[in-house]
């Protein structure tokens, strides 16, 4: 049973073998390290790039125009800011060329907080990413979704920004990836590089299969009737736990968006129609937060379906996330905050 980093690695391997992926690159992405979170270990087309985010994204765009379906990594999303201009170009070049050039590329990058990463390893990027129109944006919360979304991202002729929640890269899910061994030790022995000298090591890949999660489709990870929680990434498992803990108090529906652009408005709308109560939950900072857009749309299109005011729970609008545990926990939504907010929404008189 794979963790999310292994799931991404297996999807990339599937892409190399079956989907024409020929260039996987980024800082420390090639041997010996295989990525700071090991997501590219053992991949035959993975290589190390110079420490140059603009060059990495520019290379990916040029390769995509040449039809190479590259997968490029920015080591942490915190380091993508000096290359936002290149991302914008990635996002707009199909449109500016009147559709003449497709842009089949994936940029993957670890996002968000939860690893005591302090100021430069805790950023989220959702609001900026979702404003670079023309680029799809996905963010899984389980290994199986990471696998299926990566395969969809590789197949897509549009640029896809694949956000990997840092805090979830080592977590495991409940569902097996088609073809992977159920025993996590067995999988580890097959595809994780050994400690020490790796120069002669080669992975033994399981025969993983074609499994895609369609981009633009959310998942109802917990069905319910009283309150809708719309979330993604690192907050998705927290919402799920909260929904389970509150089972005796109310029936919570958790929508794991999985795709931020395009987002599954139909799923969100159907759920809010049913519950009339909604919490948008994410870990990016307040003030032009992506959840704020969703609230505006909810109010515009569903005003008369709402029983109580829609809520947003998200990161506090500070310049960074402080290292001390108390600072990070105070800045970012934690499970007790989610529980408190859900109880409040449940008890709000309609």
């Amino acid at each position, binding site marked *: 049973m794979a963790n999310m980093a292994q799931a991404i690695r297996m999807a990339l391997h599937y892409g190399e073998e079956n989907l024409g992926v020929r*260039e996987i690159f980024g800082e420390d992405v090639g041997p010996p390290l295989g990525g700071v979170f090991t997501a590219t270990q053992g991949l035959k087309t993975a290589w190390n790039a110079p420490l140059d985010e603009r060059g990495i994204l*520019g290379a990916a765009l040029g390769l995509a125009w*040449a039809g190479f379906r590259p997968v490029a990594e920015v080591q942490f999303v915190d380091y993508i800011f000096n290359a936002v201009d*290149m991302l914008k*170009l990635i996002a707009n070049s199909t449109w500016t060329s009147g559709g003449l050039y497709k842009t089949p590329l994936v940029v993957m990058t670890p996002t968000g907080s939860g690893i005591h990463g302090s100021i430069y390893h805790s950023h989220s990027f959702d609001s900026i990413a979702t404003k670079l129109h023309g680029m799809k944006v996905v963010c899984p919360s389980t290994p199986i979704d990471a696998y299926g979304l990566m395969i969809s991202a590789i197949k897509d002729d549009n640029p896809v920004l694949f956000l990997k929640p840092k805090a979830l890269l080592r977590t495991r899910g409940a569902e097996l990836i088609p073809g992977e061994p159920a025993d996590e030790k067995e999988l580890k022995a097959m595809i994780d590089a050994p400690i020490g000298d790796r120069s002669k090591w080669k992975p033994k890949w399981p025969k993983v299969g074609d499994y895609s999660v369609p981009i633009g489709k959310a998942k109802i990870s917990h069905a319910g009737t009283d309150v809708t929680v719309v979330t993604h990434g690192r907050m998705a498992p927290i919402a799920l736990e909260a929904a389970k803990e509150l089972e005796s108090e109310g029936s919570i529906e958790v929508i794991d968006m999985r795709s931020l652009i395009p987002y599954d408005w139909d799923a969100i709308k159907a759920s809010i129609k049913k519950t009339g109560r909604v919490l948008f939950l994410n870990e990016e900072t307040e003030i032009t937060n992506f959840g704020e857009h969703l609230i505006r749309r909810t109010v515009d299109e569903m005003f008369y379906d709402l029983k109580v005011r829609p809520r947003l729970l998200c990161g506090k609008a500070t310049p960074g996330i402080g290292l001390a545990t108390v600072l990070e926990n105070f800045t970012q939504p934690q499970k007790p905050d989610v529980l408190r907010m859900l109880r409040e929404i449940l008890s709000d008189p309609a």
Partner: protein
Amino acid sequence: MPNAATAADPFKGLEKALLLRIHGLMVRARALEERFIKMSKSGDGYFWIGGPGEEAFNVAVGLQVKKGQGPQFDYLNLHYRSSAIALSMGVTPIEMLRQMRNVATDRFSKGRNFVNHYAIPEINIVPMSPTIETQYATAIGTGIANARTPGDAITLVNGGDGGTAEGDFHSCLVWANRPVLKLPILMIVVNNGYAISAKMREEHGEKKISDWAKVFDMPAKTIDGNDPVESWLAVKEAMAYCRKERKPYLLEAACSRLYGHSSSSGANRIPESDCIALFETKLIDAKLATKEQLEKTWHDTLAEIDAAHQQVKAEPFPKPESIWEDVFSDGLPDSYPRSGGSL
């Protein structure tokens, strides 16, 4: 080394037919750019930016490209002064006039982008952006595609002197010279002495821009880009090196900027050396053409541009709803927000 015969020859052995072809393309590019400028000043288009003054050098580039689609052919990562390159590769004036007038038939951008911003998959001209220097970053990618593909195709990238201060120029140098995979990229810098108004000599301490190549021990040259013959030979040599060695080359060409930077500096004629006038004098002196012959070239070219311009004037502007085309190549989901805020 030129031999005794070619040393005395101002055209260094280039054939008459080629010289006249180069002249014809230079005139075509100039006449078209001057038409764009008129259009921008008469409300028949908006912002103008283009390449008058760079014709000698750019025709030499365009005619020597290995032209085609896909990584077996040369990729061009161009900037906005490249009309003479594109015309030399067979792009027609009417296609460019359509972009200047931002009509629906503008095949490069459907009326969305400024003039001289092409995207032509059939000849590997990748989408051009008004952002200066980002083309040196995308050139890394097309350069890798060329490097991975057997054959002799290369990547070309061009830009101005001012833009070389941007990181993307240095990214290209670094990536093209990685010991594990050198890239066959011809990096071109056209040095016209200015950014928009800022002077190269005041902002840049480098003696020559081509000196950046020294750090990497890569070949480089600075040439007179107003001379079509010197340009031809220098481009030929640089391309041959990239094609054969599969490594980068840095070529700096000093060119005039005959109408200032763009509309943003007024787009008025500036008294700098004019590569076409210089070339015409040489052609006449060498008796390779008569004054009347060259005048006829101008006349015929202008007539062609006039006719194309008239045709374009009759063509419709894009439909407003066309903004939704190509946001994604597979179309937009029905639920994609399209109202521009509250309904």
